[in-house]
């Protein structure tokens, strides 16, 4: 399935599939780069997300119709995505503790699990970034192990502190700024993941990889973490 559908007078969306998976993510990430490079002079925004790529373009230089033709040319070319492109792994230190992970106790109870077990399950997987949105630099990471999946909170919190690590269904992620949020909070990172931190934006891209590194409460504090 491949569909290009308008999203506005100067925007469109490319749907690649109706199901989320890792192979598709690699294709989407490949095409995002290729389109950005080859059609750079026309493209204003390009948002890859799970199964689609949203594009807004410069109407002064190209029409919707012409752009769709150019996109079709790129999208129908045979590609080899098995190339072992170096995808940088971004490591995020996390203190898993009930004093910062306000839902950790509940999650452990629901899953009838010890904290150590939870930590090893949550931190052993190399997660992939399926989408970025909701807030600047909020990366939707998947997929978390079946053993620790819980639904999102029935009532979202009005304010979740920046740095909080959350889980909801098959996804996990870090709140980069204070914001409302409905995910179960299980820990906190001392890292500044907001867009003010220029060093991380090259890692936080759709298709990128993330792993959580467990740290102690003392390490969390010494790295600047706020309880």
């Amino acid at each position, binding site marked *: 399935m491949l569909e290009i559908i*308008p999203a506005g007078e100067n925007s469109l969306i490319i749907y690649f599939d109706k199901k989320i998976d890792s192979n598709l993510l690699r294709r989407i990430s490949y095409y995002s780069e290729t389109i950005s490079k080859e059609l750079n002079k026309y493209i204003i925004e390009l948002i890859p997300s799970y199964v689609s790529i*949203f594009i807004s373009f410069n109407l*002064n230089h190209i029409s919707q119709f012409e752009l769709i033709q150019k996109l079709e040319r790129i999208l129908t070319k045979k590609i080899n995505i098995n190339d072992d492109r170096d995808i940088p792994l971004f490591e995020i230190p996390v203190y898993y503790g009930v004093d910062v992970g306000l839902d950790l106790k509940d999650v452990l109870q629901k899953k009838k699990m010890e904290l150590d077990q939870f930590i090893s399950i949550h931190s052993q997987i190399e997660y992939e970034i399926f*989408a970025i949105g*909701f807030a600047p*630099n909020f990366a939707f990471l998947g997929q978390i192990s079946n053993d620790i999946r819980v639904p999102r909170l029935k009532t979202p919190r009005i304010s979740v502190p920046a740095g909080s690590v959350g889980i909801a269904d098959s996804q996990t992620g870090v709140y980069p700024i204070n914001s409302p949020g409905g995910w179960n909070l299980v820990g906190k990172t001392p890292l500044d993941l907001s867009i003010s931190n220029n060093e991380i934006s090259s890692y936080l891209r759709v298709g990128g990889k993330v792993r959580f590194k467990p740290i102690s409460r003392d390490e969390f504090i010494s790295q600047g973490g706020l309880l």
Partner: protein
Amino acid sequence: MSIKIIKPGILSTIQDRGRYGHMHHGISVSGALDEYSYQLGNFILNNPCDSASIEVTYGDFSFLSLDVMHICVTGAETEISINNQPNHLNKVITLNQGDIFEIKCPKKAIRNYVCIKGGINSAIFYNSRSCNVREAIGKKITKDQVIKTFRVDNDNLNSIDPSLAPKYENDLITLRVLPTYQFHEFSDNDKALFFSQVYSISKDFDRTGVRLNGGKMTDVMKGVISEGSAVGSIEITPKGLPIILMRDAPTIGGYPKIGTVFSLDIPYLAQSGYGQRIRFELMKYVEAESERRSFNDLFGIEA
């Protein structure tokens, strides 16, 4: 050159044309919601089309001018004054050092743009001076805040025929909609309802989005896999009612969308408050493209 805020009003923020090219980081476009009034003010002052101005919501705004400067106020019909002497929208006003400029609460529309010759010289973040409170980019303007403006050497100014200024006094506005995203997946009944009924703006409306009240659609799909959202896209919630996404909205979202409001009709929505009656009408892409291009040409907008 600078001004000092006396009354900030409920919500006044610095806005320029917007923050483009960073949506893949989850950064919204932001920028002046009523693009027409914003461009008009800068055009009259002969400013570049991306000069930063002050977007004042619901008036009740005043400042002290600390230098001699030219300003132009556009947008909602309202009383404005210099040292309590009434003045007019949509024309150049010269302020002297020590003058007090004031905007009263507008009667019907809700937003004014205070454009200043040379533009506002505030911090740039990701290529833009626009404030986005939700994203913690910038803050709303506060009492006693000093706002700097660029010094300009040229005194080139424009004037316009006042009849060219947009009017926001309609009891019922029609927003033109492009059939985008999941348009074809909505049932015929739901589409018929959407394009025939008169909606009204609920109490939930801000720079992020505008929620509408009205008759509810009945066969709305549960949700879609989160996808990039255009400004103006019309999400339909599981309850069957629309939310129109504005410039501060999150960049991706998972509600199905029945269409996208044409960008040049957004200013009319941006000027509307609680209870405003709204109806929708289908628009052809070719018309939208050509109208948008003419607008870009008129104001010298590059994209």
